[in-house]
């Protein structure tokens, strides 16, 4: 659905994108993750035809962005970071205007607006001015305005920033519904839980380059990050501690009653560790598995927290 090859962009002598390559298949949910200033928004801006790349080739829905920009624009929906709506107009009028830009016949457009408002739980407030809406409701209209023309790909640039949990959950549900219906996504976010929840493929971008790409499990392997088995004991003798360290050297034994065992194959390794503990006569009080998350993978890959300024 999207093919990006050797994308380069320079701002005032500073290279912001240094040859980005990625491919998004039809129906895929692609997450573009990176710290602030990594090049996420620049990439999306170029793909939206808002900025022009200095170098590189982009194909969207089979159209060349340089030569067939109008067809590309018609194929995409863009949900920008900021809420881009007319505050003095109602939700209905906003949607009518934004939808009309994509040549959707008026009758069909009105029917889609009604459906979309229903989907986002805004039907009852559709005639109210946007300025009377809460931040979460505005975000919902912001997203709704990008899908009225039924795009083939939806670009979402941090679409849930600064909203209440209720609106966020509603948006998550809508996103999942749209994805199930086959819509392709290009998604940037700072929220790990969003990326872990939605993304079928993740591109980690740092300093203008894609440094890693794949599904979450593929990234874990790439980052060589272990999961953690945490076990609390009633009492551990010195001899038992020595034997345990010999059996499982990749661990943290600094806390006398709670040991951490690192593992890349946690389901297989958990059984081995429990059996050994039983052999040593240790009294297990509690077991907890700390799964690897994207945050730790990201940290491992880039050396930075995802939300680094």
């Amino acid at each position, binding site marked *: 659905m999207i093919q990006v090859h050797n994308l380069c962009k320079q701002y005032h002598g500073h290279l912001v994108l240094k040859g980005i390559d990625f491919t998004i298949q039809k129906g895929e949910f692609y997450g573009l993750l990176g710290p602030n200033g990594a090049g996420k928004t620049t990439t999306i801006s170029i793909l939206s035809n808002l900025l022009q790349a200095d170098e590189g080739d982009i194909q969207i829905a089979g159209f060349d962005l340089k030569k067939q920009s109008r067809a590309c624009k018609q194929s995409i929906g863009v949900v920008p970071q900021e*809420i881009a709506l007319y505050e003095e*107009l109602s939700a209905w009028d906003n949607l009518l205007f934004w939808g009309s*830009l994509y*040549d959707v016949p008026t009758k069909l457009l009105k029917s889609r607006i009604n459906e979309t408002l229903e989907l986002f739980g805004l039907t009852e407030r559709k005639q109210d001015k946007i300025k009377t809406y809460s931040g979460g409701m505005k975000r919902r209209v912001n997203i709704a305005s990008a899908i009225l023309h039924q795009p083939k790909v939806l670009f979402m640039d941090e679409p849930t920033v600064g909203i209440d949990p209720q609106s966020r959950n509603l948006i998550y549900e809508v996103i999942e519904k749209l994805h199930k219906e086959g819509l392709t996504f290009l998604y940037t976010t700072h929220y790990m839980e969003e990326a872990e929840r939605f993304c079928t493929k993740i591109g980690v971008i740092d300093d203008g380059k894609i440094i890693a790409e794949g599904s979450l499990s593929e990234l874990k392997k790439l980052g060589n990050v272990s999961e953690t088995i945490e076990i609390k004991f009633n009492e551990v003798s010195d001899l038992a501690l020595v034997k345990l360290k010999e059996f499982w050297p990749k661990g943290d034994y600094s806390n006398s009653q709670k040991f951490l065992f690192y593992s890349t194959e946690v389901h297989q390794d958990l059984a081995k560790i429990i059996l050994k503990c039983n052999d040593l006569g240790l009294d297990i009080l509690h077991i907890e598995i700390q799964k690897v998350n994207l945050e730790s993978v990201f940290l491992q890959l880039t050396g930075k927290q995802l939300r680094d300024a």
Partner: protein
Amino acid sequence: MIKFVIKDLKIFLSDKKGIFLTFLLPIILVTLFGVIFGVTKKREPRAQVLVVADEDQSPTSKNIMAQLDSLDELEIIRTTSDSAKAMVVKGDESVIMIFHKGMADSIRMGAQPEMELCYDEAKKMELGMLQSALMAKLMGIIGNSQIQRKTLLDFDKNNPQMDSQQRAKIHQQIISQFAADADTKNTKEDKPYLKVSALVAEKENSPMLVQVVAGNSIMMLLFSVVGIGASLLEEKQEGTLKKLLVSPIPVNQILFGKMLYVNIISILQLCVLFLYAYFVFKLNVPEKILPLLLMIIVTAFACSSFGVLLASIAKTKSQVQGISTLIVITMSAIGGSMIPTFVMPAFMQTMSHFTVNYWGIQGFYDIFWRNLQITDINFLGKVAVLIGIGCLLNFIALTMFKRNVKQLV
């Protein structure tokens, strides 16, 4: 493009402050200036004093003096030419009229009548008002007697053998017929020779009324279009411009949509102001509807292009407001919105030609004061200049917008 206009109109109509500033504020200003300059309708017309010095002392000059004096709207003060000139020098009077010696002969010979209007140069405006009205009246009186004289001469030339008694009798009949014609004409046409309403304050379409309505309307229009043009920068601030640019709509259409919207509001604003001037100040709008509509459209076009140009050059809304206030006030001052250009020094009058205000105001003068027809070349010239200004500014605006649009987002 229409989608943009509908959207912007909806936003405009939801903004009550905007509507007030666009329509009511100019009306208030026009009213205020109208009252200050005394163009409101008065129930009792006030007679204008005209000092006349008759050096000729002929029956013709006395007849003209008597006819002028018979007008209710004119109060003639007779004096000598020295005394009359002294009144102007002292500033007691703005304009005086002198019938020079030989005036009757010059009229009889069909030459330029030996009469002169002397005025205070600092009060040119009063001269302009008086001159136009007096010329119409005087030409009526003098023209009539000249035709009568020519008819008598032609009769004598064609009938050289006629005896003097018979000739005198026929002369008397011709003179009576001219008098009867004049009376009939006066009765039928509501005494057109006696109607010198330009000399009183309530005259329809007085130059000051046209000046107040046209001058203020164009100035306020310029302020309005700048505000509306700045909505382009609001789109930037609110992020909607970015969203428009990622839509399949061509960049040009975004600006054209804004231009069309500004034009519609400008036309509406001018229409409202001229309708107001019609109802309140009795500006003769219905009889001038076609040239007025044409002038409103081209003036709105030129003014709105100015607003769009500013919006396409500036980077922020506050920049637009700062620059525009300076430019609009300067253009309005030079272009004749605040004071008529004919009271300005010569070089300022030349400068005024570089403003939208000048061409717009002069166009409205053509319609309401000079009574030019829509087909008149002078009127159409001003229409062409305003269209030219609009096209030029819009072209620059479009070029700048396309160049700056990526920076805008």
